[in-house]
C-alpha cells in the first residue's frame, strides 16, 4: 500500500470517528451499523475477486451476533474484545468445516450452497425456544477492559472500537490482497487450470479466502449486535446475505475502502428511504442493482478510479506537450 493511500485511509478513519461521535445518537448508530456491515462486505468482496458470489455470508453475520448475545446474556462476559475474539474463533471454526464442502463449487453452485447453509442456521434458530425463536433476544450492554459505560452510553464505545477495527482490517486486507495468496484469487477467477499448472492450489486459495471472509462476517455481526442491542434469526435469512452482495456490487471490488464507503452510503440511503417510501425501498434497490450491472459493472469505486486516471492522463498530456 502506498503511503498516500495509507494516509487517505487514516484520514478517513479519523473523519469517521469524529463525525460519528459528533453526530446525534441515531446517526452515529447508523454509522456503527454501517461499519459492522462494511466488515461483512469486505469479506464478500474478497470472495468476489476470486469470482465467487456468496449468498450466505448472513450465516457468519448471524453467528457473530448470536455469540455476542449468548456471551453477554447467558455467560455474562461483556468485554468487547473477548466477544470479538470468541466470535471470530467460532465463525472460523464453522467456516473451516463448511468450507471443505463448499470450496469444491464455483459460480451459481457456490452461490446457492452458501445460501443453503445460512438457511440451515435460520431454520435451527427459528425453532429454538431458548434463543427466543423468531423474536431473538436482547444483548446486554458491553464493556471494554473493565470499563463499562452502562446502557445507553456504550454505543459510542462500540463505535470507536468498530471504526478502529474496520480500518485496521481494511489495511490488513489490502496487504493480503497484495500477497501471493491474495493475487491467487484473481488468477483463479481467470483460469483455474493455469493456476494448478503453475503449482498453486486452487482449493487452498479459495479455502483461505472463505475462512477470512467468515471471520470478517463474524466480527461484523458482533459489532451490529452490540450496537443494536438485539439479535434475531433474520440475520441469517438469505435476504440479509443478498443485501451484502448488493453493497459489494455497488461499492466495487477494486479497493478495500469501497465496501466501507458502500455500506455507509447504503445505510444512509436505507434510513432515508424507509422514512420516505417504505413500500418502494426494495424496488429502488432492484432498479439500482440493474443500473449497476448494466452501466457500472465495477461499482461506484470505478468512478474514483476513472477520475484518478483522467487526472493522470491530463498531467501526462501536459508533460508531453511541454517537452515537445
Amino acid at each position, binding site marked *: 500500500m502506498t503511503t498516500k493511500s495509507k494516509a487517505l485511509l487514516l484520514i478517513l478513519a479519523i473523519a469517521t470517528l469524529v463525525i460519528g461521535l459528533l453526530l446525534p445518537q441515531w446517526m452515529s448508530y447508523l454509522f456503527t451499523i454501517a461499519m459492522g456491515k462494511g466488515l461483512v462486505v469486505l469479506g464478500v468482496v474478497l470472495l468476489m475477486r476470486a*469470482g465467487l*458470489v456468496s*449468498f450466505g455470508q448472513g450465516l457468519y453475520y448471524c453467528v457473530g451476533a448470536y455469540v455476542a448475545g449468548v456471551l453477554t446474556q447467558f455467560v455474562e462476559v461483556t468485554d468487547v474484545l473477548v466477544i470479538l475474539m470468541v466470535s471470530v474463533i467460532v465463525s472460523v471454526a464453522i467456516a473451516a468445516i463448511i468450507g471443505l*464442502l463448499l470450496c*469444491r*463449487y464455483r*459460480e*451459481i453452485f457456490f*452461490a*446457492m*450452497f452458501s*445460501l*443453503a*447453509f445460512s*438457511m*440451515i442456521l*435460520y*431454520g*435451527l434458530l*427459528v*425453532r*429454538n425456544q431458548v434463543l427466543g425463536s423468531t423474536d431473538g433476544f436482547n444483548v446486554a450492554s458491553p464493556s471494554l477492559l473493565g470499563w463499562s459505560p452502562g446502557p445507553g452510553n456504550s454505543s459510542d464505545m462500540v463505535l470507536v472500537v468498530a471504526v478502529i477495527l474496520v480500518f485496521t482490517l481494511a489495511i490488513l486486507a489490502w496487504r493480503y490482497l497484495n500477497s501471493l495468496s491474495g493475487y491467487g484469487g484473481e488468477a483463479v477467477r481467470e483460469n483455474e487450470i493455469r493456476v494448478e499448472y503453475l503449482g498453486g492450489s486452487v482449493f487452498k486459495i479459495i479455502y483461505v479466502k472463505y475462512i477470512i471472509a467468515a471471520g470478517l462476517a463474524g466480527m461484523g455481526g458482533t459489532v451490529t449486535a452490540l450496537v443494536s442491542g438485539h439479535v434475531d434469526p433474520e440475520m441469517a435469512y*438469505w*435476504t440479509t446475505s*443478498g443485501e451484502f*452482495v448488493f453493497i459489494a*456490487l455497488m461499492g466495487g471490488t477494486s479497493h478495500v475502502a469501497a465496501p466501507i464507503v458502500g455500506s455507509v452510503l447504503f445505510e444512509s440511503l436505507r434510513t432515508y428511504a424507509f422514512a420516505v417510501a417504505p*413500500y*418502494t*425501498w*426494495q*424496488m429502488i*434497490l*432492484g*432498479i439500482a*442493482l*440493474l443500473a449497476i*450491472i448494466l452501466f457500472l459493472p465495477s461499482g461506484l469505486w470505478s468512478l474514483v478510479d476513472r477520475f484518478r486516471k483522467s487526472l493522470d492522463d491530463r498531467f501526462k498530456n501536459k508533460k508531453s506537450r511541454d517537452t515537445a
Partner: protein
Amino acid sequence: MKQFLAILVDGSVYASWLFIISAGLTLIFGVMRILNMSHGSFYALGAYSGAAMVGWYFTTGAVPWLSFFVLIGAALVVGVFVGLLVERGLLRFMYGRDEVVMILVTYAVLLIMEDAIKLIFGVEPYFAFQPYMLMGRSSFIGLSFANYDFLLIGVSILIGLSLWYGLNRTRNGKLLRVVIHDREIAGALGINVSKIFTITFLIGSGIGALAGALTAPALSVVPGIGVQVIVLAFAVVVIGGLGSITGALVGALIVGMARATAVHIYPELELFVIYAVMGLVLAFRPQGLFAIANARKI
C-alpha cells in the same frame, strides 16, 4: 401405522406442491442456464392474483365450482403476462452474460416484483379459502384429510406428465432439447433459439404462478411468501440436479417426505432437515441426483 400414513399423505401433498414450484425453476435453468431467483415472485404473484380474483368471484354469487377455473385462469394469465414483460423487457438484453450475473439480474427482478406486489395488492393478507372448503374433508382409519390436498397431488401429476410428454413426444419438445444440449449448434441448425427462450420462460413463470394460485386457498396470502418459497425450490432442484424434470420430481419427493417425517416426529427440525438432506446428497453427489451430463468444452 396411523402416524406412518399421516406422514405418507402429508409428505406426498408437500412433495407435489414443491414439484409444481420447482418444475418451472428447473425448466428455465435447463434451457436458458438462468437460475431464476425471481421465480418465487411469480409464485407470489400467482397466489395474490388467484386469491384476489376468487375473493371477487364469490361476491358475484356465481356457481361456486367454477371458482377453480377463476383461480387457475387468473394466475396463468398474470404469470404469463408478467413473464413476457420480464423476458422481453429485460432478460433478453442480458443473454450471454455470466451465469452469476444472471443470478444478480433475477435477484434485482425479485426485489422489484416484491414491492410491485405490495403496491398493487397492499400489505393486508388475502384469503381464498372457499375452494378449499368446497372440497370438504374425508377420513380413513381415523385420520382426516382435506380433499383439496388430493387435488394438488392430481394437478402436480398432470403437470409432470404434460411436461414429460411435451419434452419427449412433440416436435417442439425435441427442438427444446436440442437447445438444452447445445445452444450454439441449435442456432446453427436454424432453430430460433431466442423464440424458444421466450416460450420456455413463459411456461416456467406460468407454472410458478399456477403453484402460487393452487396454494392460495390453503393458507393466507401475505407479503414475503415468494421469498420463503424460492429457497425451498432451490433445495429441491439442487438435490435432483439442476435442469432435470425427473430430478425435480425425486427431489420434491425426498424433501416432502423428510419434512413430513420431521413435522410429525420432531417438529423443531422442520426447516433444518430439508437442508440437511440437501447437504447429504451433495456430499456424495455434488452435481445432484439427475444432473444432465455436460460435455466439457474447451
